[in-house]
């Protein structure tokens, strides 16, 4: 993993330099764990090390934000997201190898979101394009096509996640970085409008988990039979019909 200074664009900010040193130290010890084939024990240790980097980035970011150094804060956010992408990718491999496909899916989505954040946080994030592509390739190659649910709402009140003002009335644009955080919209009052089946949801965790055909319910990821209507009847019916 490259530094937050960027290979051609290093900056002389103590917090950024400190984070770069921390990344290099973690990479030296744990980057070997990144390929999927590595042992689960190795990958668990590596994931924890990258978790610690996330905390470190957050701590250093607070320091540069206090000085009003927006660029360094965005660089550290980028590093924070990249460390999150690596930790989630490692946990994706672990869950996959342990056969927990639901957890593997969720970790894959975590990794996709973290890498997307790294790419968006600062222009130096573009150096992570190849690493960022991994969880998206995993989705295409290792998982079946699944359907997703999406909720539609009429939002009556909302606020900017940076300043709390009504979105559009402040100077923060959704998706851009301010003080080391992505601006977003927090919904505070809304009416549910509809739920839909969609192909490309905002949150891929909202997936169709089971599907029932001819009374047989299967897990959409593993295709294992979860239940059948006969099973359901057998479980709910009394043992002796005479007692019913």
């Amino acid at each position, binding site marked *: 993993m490259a530094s937050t200074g960027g290979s051609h664009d290093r900056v002389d900010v103590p917090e950024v330099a400190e984070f770069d040193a921390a990344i290099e130290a973690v990479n030296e010890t744990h980057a070997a764990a990144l390929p999927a084939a590595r042992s689960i024990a190795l990958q668990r240790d590596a994931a924890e090390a990258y978790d610690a980097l996330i905390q470190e980035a957050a701590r250093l970011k607070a320091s540069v934000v206090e000085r009003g150094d927006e660029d360094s804060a965005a660089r550290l956010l980028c590093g924070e997201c990249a460390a999150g992408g690596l930790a989630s990718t490692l946990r994706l491999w672990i869950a996959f190898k342990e056969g927990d496909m639901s957890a593997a899916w969720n970790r894959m989505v975590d990794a*996709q979101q973290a*890498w*997307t954040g790294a*790419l*968006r946080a600062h222009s130096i*994030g*573009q150096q992570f*394009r190849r690493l*960022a*592509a991994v969880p*998206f*390739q995993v989705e295409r190659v290792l998982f079946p096509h699944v359907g997703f649910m*999406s*909720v*539609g*709402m*009429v*939002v*009556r009140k*909302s606020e900017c996640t940076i300043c709390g003002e*009504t*979105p*559009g*009335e*402040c*100077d*923060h*644009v*959704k*998706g851009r970085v301010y003080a080391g955080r992505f601006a977003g*919209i927090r*919904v505070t009052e*809304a009416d549910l*409008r509809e739920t*839909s089946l*969609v192909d*490309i*949801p*905002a*949150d891929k965790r*909202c997936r169709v988990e089971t599907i029932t055909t001819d009374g047989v319910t299967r897990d959409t990821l593993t295709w294992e039979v979860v239940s059948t209507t006969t099973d359901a009847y057998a479980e709910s019916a009394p043992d002796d019909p005479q007692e019913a």
Partner: protein
Amino acid sequence: MTSASVTYGDYSSVADRCDALGVRRPTGIAMLPRNLATADAGDELLAEASDAAVRVLWRQAEIEEDRLDSPEAPFPHVSEHHADWIGPTVFLSSALLSESPALVSVALGVIANYVTDLFKGVPGRHTARLQVVVERSNGDCVQVTYNGPATEIGEILDAVGDLTSNDG
């Protein structure tokens, strides 16, 4: 991979619809409620979730928006939790087109740059939709819709440019 498409269609007279619904007529550049053409009453009007971002971007680019609602009483907005970027319906009045035609490319360019940046380098299929309603000098309105890859949304600038230069 989704291919980009730009389509054209008729749109109701914005001035007539605003009068019918009891909201003020825009005379410059505006963002129209998504259901302006179909709503039965003014209190049914709904903005797009993306309007807020575009509002800030325009303000920062010193583009004066002609709002149909007000900061004190904004239209509720629709939030649909899918990954596509659904842009506002941008209205370009005939007065604006005759007096400040250069503003159109700036206003749409700001949106295109924002959307392109948002998805730059991000793996996966990301689509965007942006609609522009152009008011002719006779009051008729034409709608231009871009639907396609988010990173190619700038194509709508040419389409709108062609349309506005042909208003006779």
